């Protein structure tokens, strides 16, 4: 089943104004109607928590109300519908298929709204390799844009990770890597990205969204966007750093959406020849390295108080 990845995440929030400002400052574009878009049209949708148009909440602190998957074509919607009608209620209306997964997360499937992007990736020059940036090409400038390009992945806390994984396997997701006793990184068939969904086993009262992230153009954009976000007063949670599974650069922030919000970049791609790795979760397994924001500083000249 040719599922590409998440097209949108829909939240029912406590503080709509705060979430709106947060997502704009994060770098998404206010597209109206509570929709905040990345460059390719993938989005986060914000509604008031008591909005009657939202699917029911999860009964926890989580504010995630729906995960909208983009698929390749109507034929894929037919295949998903046929598979899910075997054991659950599915509603198909106006080209959108709606149901709930085995943990109770509301899902929607639609022909993807993603717009094709034609943007350069971050370039690197290194001895021994052909230059990626030719003579007089500048690598970084203070005012260069660093905007989220595409909704990358969502991470769920789930009370029964084996059952949750089995559901997504029915839809053609494959496990690319696994943290033992924690959960799988899952890749749907319509993308080579290491994961668009990761799940973490937790007690039932934690069920919900742990984080979501958008892909940036490269590590420089992750660090630049994250630095600008900190300078606006937002609270870093974890990072910047680089994960081992997926190789993606990361920087996570607190948010008023009831979950962390991340910038990521440069994720590994995998195809069906890949054999999933498995290890115990821990600090060493989660990241190759981890740094922490600090205010800009520079060494210069003589010690303070010295005569010039």
């Amino acid at each position, binding site marked *: 089943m040719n599922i590409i990845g998440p097209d949108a995440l829909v939240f029912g929030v*406590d503080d709509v104004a*705060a979430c709106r400002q947060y997502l704009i400052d994060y770098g998404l574009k206010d597209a109206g109607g509570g929709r905040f878009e990345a460059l390719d049209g993938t989005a986060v949708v914000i509604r008031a928590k008591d909005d009657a148009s939202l699917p029911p909440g999860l009964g926890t*602190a989580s504010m995630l109300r729906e995960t909208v998957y983009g698929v390749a074509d109507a034929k894929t919607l037919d295949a998903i519908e046929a598979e899910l009608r075997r054991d659950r209620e599915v509603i198909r209306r106006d080209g959108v298929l709606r149901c709930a997964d085995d943990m109770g997360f509301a899902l929607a499937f639609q022909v993807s709204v993603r717009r094709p992007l034609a943007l350069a990736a971050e370039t690197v020059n290194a001895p021994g390799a052909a230059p990626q940036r030719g003579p007089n090409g500048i690598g970084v400038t203070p005012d260069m844009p660093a905007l989220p390009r595409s909704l990358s992945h969502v991470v769920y806390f789930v009370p029964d990770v084996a059952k949750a994984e089995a559901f997504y396997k029915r839809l053609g997701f494959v496990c690319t890597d696994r943290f033992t006793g924690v959960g799988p990184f899952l890749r749907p068939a319509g993308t080579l990205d290491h994961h668009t969904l990761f799940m973490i086993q937790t007690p039932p*009262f934690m069920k919900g969204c742990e984080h979501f992230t958008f892909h940036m153009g490269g590590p420089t954009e992750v660090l630049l966007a994250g630095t600008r976000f900190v300078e606006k007063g*937002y*609270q*870093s949670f974890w990072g910047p750093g680089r994960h081992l599974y997926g190789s993606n650069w990361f920087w996570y922030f*607190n948010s*008023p959406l009831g*979950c962390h919000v991340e910038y990521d970049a440069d994720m590994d791609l995998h195809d069906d020849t890949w054999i999933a790795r498995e290890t115990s979760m821990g600090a060493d397994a989660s990241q190759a390295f981890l740094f922490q924001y600090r205010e800009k500083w520079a060494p210069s000249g003589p010690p303070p108080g010295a005569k010039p």
Partner: protein
Amino acid sequence: MRLCHLDDLPDGDSRGFELRATGRDTIFVVRQGASLHGWLNVCPHHGAPLAWRKDAYLDAARNRVVCGAHGAQFEIHTGLCTLGPCLGQALTPVPLTLSGDGAVHVAATFTEETTP
């Protein structure tokens, strides 16, 4: 040590204070009139900071402390988590004293570095 003057605390809202040079608020104070509630800026779930933005520790109605990590909710008066990953646990209180001239003081122990 002196933290601030009562007038420096927004009534009905929260404010964070960085007492250790860690780059983030060490404690936060919620003011409700002349009542002050001080808490360590540490969520019992991961030991991570609570605010999602500088000084932003409360829900929209300003009647709960909310963690910006996973939306855990805490009672302002007791620090008890009533919803979220640290359900049943509580924030660590920071005793504050309010003098007659409006000065707000915190015990010097909260300015010292501690090993997490």
